[in-house]
């Protein structure tokens, strides 16, 4: 608990981290408070109080605060309920992918040898196959099987089970160095089992890294979910932000000039992704020991971390004026 307090004090001093946290808190409030933030339900149609005609594509000036969509539904209400779907898919898929990635990373790093080799080759293969086409084809196959799985569960599974390679690499590298430390060697010497060592010695040490990475992976998951939903793979009865943009686009919001339909959900996605990225970067900077001595690491590995799968870590250091050599980020270690 005291550690947590110290950590919070360090985090609070970080302006970008706090900005990210603010963005995240607002979106969580939006999601949790959906039923109370608007007098309407997500499927209600808005009508003109005088003529009783359904308000189609009504601009914010006619129906506040964000106007209506092509079926006369309130966009503010849709936005708050959409937050629930987008955030929960992002969260669940993020957690699933971290669970898989951490397990693979720990097992590969701890056991080494052929296990490590096999797992890392799987990671390599997964990194090379184009991700979105693979997901699309998998979802198409699953839908056709007709297992009665909800599209949202399918999205969580597919995203969670495919986006773990960067986490696995990160955790593996950390475990590799932990394994050589004295406390692990001593535990081995006195006859501790593998399970015990992983559980008691390795896991607590990599946990901070796992937590930091979870937030970053969530931002990827939210982005990927929005894209797949835009392509029509979401649940049309429970529209996420991506599905909203899909509706807006396919139902001619653009040609009707209904900017209030397609702008808000997109801004919301940027808002949340930005929040996750900022918080995740600060956490990673505070908790990842590897970032403090990047010069000694293999340079060839560095850009692997910077693809669209992972957030740009370098950013924060630069934006906050901190160097990656960790001049003043060491309080938590």
């Amino acid at each position: 608990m005291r550690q947590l307090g110290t950590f919070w004090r360090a985090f609070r001093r970080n302006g970008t981290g706090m900005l990210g946290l603010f963005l995240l808190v607002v979106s969580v409030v939006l999601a949790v408070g959906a039923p109370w933030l608007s007098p309407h339900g997500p499927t209600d149609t808005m009508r003109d109080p005088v003529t009783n005609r359904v308000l189609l594509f009504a601009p914010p000036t006619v129906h506040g605060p964000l106007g209506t969509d092509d079926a006369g539904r309130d966009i503010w209400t849709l936005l708050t309920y959409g937050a629930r779907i987008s955030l929960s898919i992002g969260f669940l898929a993020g957690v699933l992918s971290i669970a898989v990635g951490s397990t693979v990373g720990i097992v590969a790093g701890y056991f080494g040898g052929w296990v490590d080799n096999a797992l890392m080759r799987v990671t390599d293969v997964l990194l090379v196959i184009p991700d979105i086409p693979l997901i699309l084809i998998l979802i198409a196959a699953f839908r056709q099987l007709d297992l009665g799985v909800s599209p949202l569960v399918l999205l969580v599974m597919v995203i969670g089970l495919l986006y773990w390679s960067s986490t696995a690499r990160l955790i593996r590298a950390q475990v590799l160095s932990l394994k050589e430390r004295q406390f692990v060697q001593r535990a081995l010497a006195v006859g501790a089992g593998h399970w015990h060592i992983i559980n008691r010695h390795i896991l607590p040490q990599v946990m901070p890294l796992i937590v930091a990475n979870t937030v970053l992976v969530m931002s990827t998951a939210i982005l990927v979910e929005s894209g797949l939903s835009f392509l029509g793979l979401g649940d049309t009865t429970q529209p996420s932000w991506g599905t909203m943009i899909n509706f807006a686009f396919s139902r001619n919001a653009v040609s009707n000039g209904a900017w209030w339909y397609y702008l808000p959900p997109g801004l919301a996605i940027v808002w949340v992704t930005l929040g996750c990225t900022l918080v995740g970067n600060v956490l990673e900077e505070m908790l990842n020991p590897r970032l403090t001595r990047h010069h000694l690491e293999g340079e060839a590995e560095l850009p692997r971390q910077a693809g669209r799968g992972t957030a740009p870590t370098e950013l924060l250091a630069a934006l906050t004026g901190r160097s990656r050599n960790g001049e003043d980020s060491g309080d938590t270690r």
Partner: protein
Amino acid sequence: MTRTDVILRKFALAAVTIAVVVLLNFILFRVLPGDPVRAVIGRGVRISAETQAALRVQFGLDKPVFPDQFIDTLGQWAQGNLGVSWSQRRPVAEVLVAKLGNTLLLITAGQLLSIILGVGLGLLAGWRRKTALDVGALTFSLITWATPTFWLGIILLVAGSAWLGLPTAGSRDPGNVGKPMLEVLPDIAEHLILPTLTFTLVYLGQYMLIMRSSVLEVLSEDYILTAKAKGLTVWQTLTRHALKNALLPVVTLIALNLGFTVAGAIYIETVFSYDGLGRLFQEALNRQDYPLLQGAFLLLAVAVVGSNLLADLIYAYLDPRVKTT
């Protein structure tokens, strides 16, 4: 590890990946209820049970799935025979080839622009570290990273058509379809502007970031100090010594990005109704045209794996740390 080892490993990885893709494609093809007989004659056509059975024998569908059908399918794919598209009633390979050019054009233009701009801006940002330019460039890349590609496309589509009068759909004007390419070049270019701009904005930030951090990394090396001591200006040091070394990670990023490039093409082509492979993929998905979906996936995956291998080879050749034997 010697250079030969590295190259052999890269080839092995590419081979394994292709094998995985092919296997996955075959398994999914069997999972999907796509009866190849139906695929050829069309879903609505009624035929007698005997004819159907005869056709099954003719197509080899009476044989066991593994190994007979698998080997047969492999042989077909190797010859470029990817089956017949359900929605278009044409061979899948033919449909794919017809769309390939447009997508290649879009991806090449987008990647080239984002690499050139990204490398240039990254160099400037690293050089002028912690100035307004640097912070601005970083903020820009952070925001573009967080922006969904398709949404950015929609915004640019609206802005570009309203303020600049640019075309918003297709790869050329309806009247120009089928005319020889040279005659309609200006039209093609005009249709390329907005999709290419979207592409560039999406990928620019990453190249800038990687370039910036490798410039910073290179600038802290000893030989840069030597160059400074020699009396070179910072800019001369950057262009003569830092640029070449800092470009290495960019090559890796280009390779890594190829997979994401395909995703970008799917989103951008969908938004701009651009007549390419990405939109074809999305349409095949919506129309449940499985042979087309499978063929497109196979083509995209093989293309990405191949280009990745190429980039890896270039890297092994460029990086002096990968030693020659």
